[in-house]
């Protein structure tokens, strides 16, 4: 499937900003399930000191500065991506029991195992709170195959937590999400990751987009045309398996991955430091469109784009 994604972030400042310095994580990375044909950033006003690099997690990160007074900052990422259908060869019921995976992660030191170690511990936004273990236990029953258990965890989060964009901001701590059982995609991913790590597993946060494709008779997928997030769990010997607890399914062809990290803080789409500026207002809009050679089903624009 081919997509063109347009992700616009606009900051309005009540007073002029003399200078700002920013980092974005907006360009689409390559994965085994997708090819990035073209992914570019447009910055207004004109930016200087622009440097792109691949970060610790392999994401494409762009550093830039604006060294002139301005009261609006607009960053637009346009990406053409080809997504291959994901075929989950590994049957969930046939994967290793989760305890065996924990043991492998704990004792083995192969390059693969070492490379997933950053994803095994508490991270800035995911403290390993005691309630996480309790919540995880119901899915992680003894000897249960890892992928089956992860699938169950995803389903339980989908059913137990209500999707409520008004309930949380990116500053809502995990403890509060757990207590109130409400949140958005980012919170659900954080909960799942926290559960898996609490038991010693490796789990990562994936940020990206999801295509909005309401087929007749089907419900509209929540999170369409906004930034989206889900989680992945590591199965030694097979790699990472993605789960979307917001939509209660495993990504196939409609999830576009931008970046991954330990939690949201590693893949924040745009962060910055401004000199001056007074109060600021931010407007985000995301548009995920199938490319013209494919049947064009829908192009939507949403002015205020909260995280789904």
């Amino acid at each position, binding site marked *: 499937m081919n997509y063109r994604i347009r992700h616009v972030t606009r900051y309005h400042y009540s007073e002029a900003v003399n200078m700002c310095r920013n980092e974005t994580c907006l360009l689409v990375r390559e994965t085994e399930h997708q090819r990035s044909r073209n992914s570019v950033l447009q910055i207004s006003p004109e930016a200087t000191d622009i440097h792109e690099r691949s*970060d*610790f997690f392999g994401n494409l990160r762009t550093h830039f500065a604006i060294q002139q007074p301005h009261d609006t900052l607009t960053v637009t990422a346009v990406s053409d991506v080809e997504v291959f259908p994901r075929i989950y060869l590994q049957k969930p019921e046939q994967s290793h029991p989760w305890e065996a995976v924990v043991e492998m992660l704990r004792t083995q030191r192969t390059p693969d195992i070492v490379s997933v170690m950053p994803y095994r511990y508490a991270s800035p936004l995911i403290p390993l709170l005691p309630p996480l273990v309790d919540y995880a236990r119901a899915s992680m029953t003894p000897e249960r195959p890892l992928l089956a258990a992860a699938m169950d965890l995803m389903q339980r989060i989908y059913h137990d937590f209500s999707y409520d964009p008004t309930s949380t901001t990116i500053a809502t701590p995990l403890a509060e999400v757990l207590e109130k059982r409400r949140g958005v995609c980012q919170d659900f991913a954080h909960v799942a990751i926290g559960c898996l790590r609490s038991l010693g597993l490796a789990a990562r946060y994936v940020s990206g987009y999801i295509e909005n494709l309401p087929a007749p008779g089907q419900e509209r997928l929540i999170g369409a045309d906004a930034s989206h997030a889900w989680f992945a769990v590591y199965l030694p010997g097979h790699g990472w398996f993605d789960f979307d607890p917001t939509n209660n399914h495993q990504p196939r062809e409609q999830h576009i991955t931008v970046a991954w990290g330990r939690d949201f803080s590693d893949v*924040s789409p745009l962060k910055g*430091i401004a000199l001056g500026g007074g109060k600021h207002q931010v407007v985000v809009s995301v548009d995920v469109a199938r490319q013209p050679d494919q049947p064009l089903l829908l192009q939507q624009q949403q002015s205020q784009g909260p995280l789904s």
Partner: protein
Amino acid sequence: MISEPETSISTAAATDIYRAIVEAAGAGDFPEHWQRLQQNLEKLGPRVHTRFREAQRLLRENGAIHNVFDQSNSNRAWQFDPLPLIFSVAEWGQLDQAMIQRAELFNLILQDIYGPRKLIEKRLLPPELVFPHSGFFYPCADGNFPQPQQLNLFSTTIAKGTDGNFWVVDDHVSPPFGAGYALETRVIMTRSFPQLFEGFRVHRLAQFFRAVRQRFGQLARQHQEYPRIVVLTAGPTHPDYFEHAYLASYLGYPLVQGGDLVVRDSCVWLKTVDGLHQVDVIFSRLADHACDPLELRSHSGGGVPGLLQAVRRGNLALVNPIGSSILANPALMAFLPGICRYFLGTDLKVPSIATWWCGQPRECKYVLENLDRLIIKPIQPLPDMPQSTPGRMTDAQRQRWTALISANPRLFVGQEQVDYVAFPAYEQKQLATRQSLVSLYVTAHNESYQLMPGGLSRVAAAGDNLLVSGQRAGSIKDTWVLTQEPHQQVNLWLRSTSDVPLSPYFVSLPSRAAENLFWAGRYAERTEQTARLLRSILVKLREVKEFGDPDDRISLNHLLQALTHVTLTYPGFVGKDAQQKLDDPRAELLSLIRDIDRSGSLRSSLRSLGRSAVEIRDLLPEDAWRLVDQMQSWNPRVGRALIGSGRMYENVHQLVLQLSAFSGLAYENMARETAWLLLNIGRRLERALNLIDLLNETLVPCYDSATEARIMETVLASCNSLVVFRRRYRSFMQLSPILELLLLDENYPRSLACQMRQMKRHISELPHEANVPTVGQDEEIISSALEQLQATDHKGLTRQISESGSYPLLEALLTDQKKRLQQLSNCLTQFYFRPTQALQQFGLPLREMVL
């Protein structure tokens, strides 16, 4: 000299006590050097006590053991102990090898953690000590960072065990702590106790700092010939600000704060009075994570957004390399022996104290079972940690620690307490033996490391354990490393082919320092003027009380009202209920003298002076700084009833003298460079503004002649000009000559015209950045202000009298001059001080790591 009672130090019996002490301390059979020290001490006799007091006072006044601006409540109460800790040639040789080995080892660990991470693969280092550690910076580990980033400065604290062996109890990397204190302690020792050095060949410290300078210079990737190096501090509220300022001025680098630096085009620039200057090397005394709020997302402030990018692009070197705080982890000690064998193929030359990392089940169990006798430490800074109190733990404390460790075992270690040697110490005029720890300092040097031949020794108070009570407890003392070689005079500034030359860059004054100099000048003058005015008022108050003359009362009232105007402490003596206060001014006066939280009061202005001065203490003459520090404790304990008595007058008078001494010291000792120019411009500007306010309040209204004479006399007195006036004019008080003297006489140092003329000269000497469109505006303002005064005829000023009974022409002149001065102040702020705007972060919330 006051004669001291003889004490044990100088009696004959002391020899035996001393010998017993030293032998008990495990130093063997009373080695020669301890014997000699004892002889020197005996020769010094009771003078040791006075010298001790002097040394203690020096340390205090320099701020080394006392920082009045410290807001961290770190509660350091270091005492000074004049008895040095002495290392023999042989002992030191052993330590020298061991410390160089340890620094090399820590450097290799750093390279590995931010590079191939073989130590994890080889199971020599648990991944829990790297990936989730708060000192591991993912942005520095992505392969875009210049490699290798060598560990440049390293510090280790050692103890001597009762078995005679040395043990490492602590390692410091980020930022290494105490080398400046070691230097200061040595300086004070040579100043106060030169006799103790007799017959000793003690290694000097200068060579070490020369190696440090050389190393810093080599780190510069550009401007190799004139590397631009700064010391970055969190500012005067930091508990170690003294050391930052001390090292900066000793090494000859500008002392800067985050707001002084700006990143442009992936390079770091220092904002100075004559424009931006690129910085090549930062000797950072900020916490590692506080360096760059953009990429490291710290709460603490003080950093420079974009710093990491400058490093990444190869335009900046940081000492120590950013990310080094991963090494600040006591759990590493548990794994060092294996790592040492892996990297170096040998054993550690000096072992670390036994350390159990609770991330391993067996070790955790051991620690939990032995909580009572182990020292428990977190492996990274954690909020709300209880104090570890081995040996005297209550049940509640034991439960608290057990809960903390069980919840997050990987975050804690338990460490063995060592029985370490007690060395001779001086405590409350007595000889004693006290356990001592020594911090040693290492700098990278010529592909390897060099150890400072000395260190900072800390002495535990009786019954205290330094391993537990931490870095800020106990006493500090000098550390002597003996040498067999004759002294070589090492001059830090001596230029050799391999050394780094000085750069003209140092002449540039950072903008923040410029602003603080300007304000230190203004506050010093403001405080002095307020004090002088108060002094006049106190005299007048007494006269009113004693003679009951109504004219005195009227002139007192005008002075009181002038005081309110000059100090901007409205409503004061001019507001609605002023009459009541004028009838009994004592409460208001007391408040204007003593209320430190009331803006405009004497003590509040003194504090403002202190706050500006502490920021530039590296630029002030040492004695001038001491005076400012002393004045911070000025607080006359005189009640309201006695305010008219001689005691309050005497207190204020003493303060006037101290303030005069401060200005004299600055005047006589500062080079006529930009720093001095700004200090003096601030002083002149403030004096001019004060004078205008005073004259506006007192001389613009018309009075009957008897009152007028009293008022004029008091005005002259508070301007310190009464004697001059009488000598020059030999006449009765007349307004016109007074105005000539106080406003227009360019040669009289207290006149308005003189302030203007001096400011004009100073401003013309300030460095001017050529390409600023508004260049020269400051000169225009001051020139036209001076011209206005020069064109004024003093006789004409009082020619008109308004209906309301005042001199409108005089008033107009004063108002106009004041406006020009305010314009000038704004203009200087814009040109030279480059006010720092507030930083705001967006895009990511900051959440605390919660246990």
